[in-house]
């Protein structure tokens, strides 16, 4: 039995220690917002936060997450999550939507580290996340929109 903390809650899971965190989150715990896209850390669909850093859950063995704080799209705190989701909705970013959990999780870390990113910063921060529907131009705009909303909120 392995104990992990996901979205501020403890789970005791009966899985092999080498099982990628992605499948523990999806199949064992049942949180399906985190997606399987490539299995080799190439596409970013499985992006989660591990102790606050963006991590590819498809290549992270569950044993490496023991004792660490795991956050998935379902548990993304509102301080960054709300403005990002609002911006995504305001610009109708998603098409098929499959990659968007990973995109938002990556964007949250980007904005936390760099509250006022340039287009180039956004490109650098988001290049690991593939969107086959081609929503990149809107993701770019949505990140700027969220950054503005966060800045306004802070100024108030």
């Amino acid at each position, binding site marked *: 039995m392995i104990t992990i903390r996901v979205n501020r809650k403890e789970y005791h899971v009966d899985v092999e220690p080498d099982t990628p965190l992605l499948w523990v989150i999806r199949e064992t715990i049942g949180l*399906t917002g985190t997606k399987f896209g*490539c299995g080799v850390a190439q596409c970013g669909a499985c992006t989660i936060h591990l102790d606050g850093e963006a991590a590819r859950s498809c290549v992270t063995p569950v044993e490496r997450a023991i004792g660490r704080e795991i956050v998935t799209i379902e548990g993304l705190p509102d301080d960054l999550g709300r403005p990002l989701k609002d911006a995504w909705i305001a610009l109708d970013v998603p098409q098929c939507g499959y990659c968007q959990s990973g995109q938002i999780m990556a964007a949250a870390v980007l904005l936390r580290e760099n509250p006022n990113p340039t287009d180039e910063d956004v490109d650098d921060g988001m290049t690991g996340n593939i969107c086959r529907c081609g*929503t990149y131009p809107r993701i770019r705009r949505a990140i700027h929109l969220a950054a503005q909303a966060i800045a306004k909120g802070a100024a108030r």
Partner: protein
Amino acid sequence: MTEVVNLSRRGFLRAGALSGGGLILGVYLPTPGEAAEPPLAKPASFKPNAFLRIGSDNSVTVIVNHSEMGQGIYSGLAMIVAEELDADWTKVKVEAAPADPVYNHTMYGVQITGGSTSTISEWDRLRKAGATARAMLITAAAQAWKVAPGSCRANKSRVIHQESGIVLSYGELAEPASRLAPVRNVPLKDPANFTLIGTPVKRLDTPDKVTGAAVFGLDVTVPGMLVAVLARPPVFGGKAIRVNSAKALAVSGVRRVVEIDRGVAVVADGFWQARKGRAKLEIDWDLGDLSALDSHMQRDEYVELSRSPGAVARKQGDAEAALAASARVLESVLDLPYLAHAPMEPLNCVADVRPDGCDVWTGTQAQTLDHHAAALAAGLKPEQVKIHTTLLGGGFGRRAALDSHFVREAVLVSKAVKAPVKVIWTREDDLKGGYYRPAAHHVISAGLSEDGQITAWKHRIVCQSFIIGTPFEAAIVKDGVDETCVEGAADLPYEIPNILVDWKKAPSGVPVQWLRSVGHTHTAFVVETFLDELAHAAGKDPLELRRSLLAKHPRHLRVLDRAAQEFGWDKPLRDGRGRGLAVHQSFGSYVAHVVEISVSKTGKITVHRVVCAIDCGPIVNPDSIRAQMEGCIVFGLSTLHHEITFTDGRVKQRNFHDYPVLRMNETPEIEVHIVKSTDSMGGVGEPGVPPVAPAVANAVFNLTGKRIRRLPFRADDLKQA
């Protein structure tokens, strides 16, 4: 004529979203040749097809028979109903239709999502459903108030009596309206009075797609479900001849190893265990006839095929004679590779086969085909099989499988293990799994007169057909020509006196299928790059040459002029930049792209800007059109970078590292301009793709003087000496 029917009182419909009462309407569309009798006159043969339910809770549920794969169709079709219904958009919900002939595509005769036709094919039927419901709700209100229906109007899911100002909500009126006969021949709105259609309404599915709540096929779980991965033959057409599953079965969590016709399934408690088990399988394969398949050799074979005439797709005048008589002949030979759709959600399917029934959950574009294939594989009658369509994590044609292979696999495995099973394809399985855009070899030539007029055009296409031998053959193959192989070439719009377009069928073997914009993906590249070449040879501006040859094609002209003007075609570019354009009609819509690029010393192309103009006729949601054009442009730019190739019969590419798709840092600035148009309605899911790659290739020539005659681009082709 379509006929709206009241299904509210039909008890057997009371399931799922249709339970709880209220007004339920269907739209009956007689098949051609069927007597135009009102359907209720023959209740025995009439099958229900609910399209719209108005609940006592004020909800408006639109049952959508097209699959949502990102194109925004759930919202677009709901908008059409809501407009005529005068519904409050915030109360509108969408539910996927089950697989049933009553939900067949109005043009294709099966339930399928493709061809960029979802909006145009449902436009009349859903407007009528919405308008009829609205008239019935007004009638119910007028009866309650004992006033004339004409003295009432509807607005935002309420009926208002004009004089007194009294109001009843649709929720309050749903039950009384459900007792009424449908109001016949309800007039539809004058488009000038539309308040929703034509506006950038927010999509209904976005909120769930930003919280992780949206359910795709891969997210479906049913009680007792096992997970399977398959070892499929390493070469297409291969078969397992000996399987040793002992080591696989020893892996913790692996329950069963099952052989089916498409491979060997490892069935386990979860994906990781199944995948570990698969790695331990020992299989001897009979590799079949394609074990020596090699992309270079296949290209040689296609070249050989191109030396003799094919089936004629278009003949106008005498192209051969005109070529012989022309002052100058230009020829171009082009090669385009197999392409994988690579949707972000790898293929998957959940099947639960029981002795007396079968349920299938999957993101599919082709419910009718899957329904029949599942019934056959399960050994059940079609009425015992239910298809539940989930959201699709991308489709691009991959999930409209003509042989329903990804559904059959799950059904066969579930049947064998007598439990619900989810078959998951890994990314590698998906890329190596076939059903590609066919590789194509093109030979094209044209004659120029002394004064630079194009006198002749001869275009030969060599590629596989994925239509011949399928139920679609009768509709799509004409005089021996598979239309999906020559579309975009045979319908060349340019005014040239002598034209010959023919097609040589390449041998089948590698599984091929439609990919976003289908034949246009390769024909437009050839036609639009070659026209650019002719412009250069004739000393003409590529925009001006196109304009002069499109005088009789106002819609082509409109998008071409608009894109050129917005781009600033008449203004000089910055140093080190090149520009190119292309225009193409597909799926009833007209799209022009103008691009600006640069090329590094090492031969790497950077696309800086794409300016797009589209004429798709009447607009339902302009923001969805923009989103589709953006998506088409990114999809088209990806085709500059990837290919599927074969060595020793095996697919070489494995994952996104060797099948690269466009990423954020490679995405140019994109501008989309929608041309106002009252012409016929076209599609938007695909028509933005075809002109992308040729516009970039033309820009590369503009900057470097080098012609791109094969895709993907190779940096070596463009490297500065």
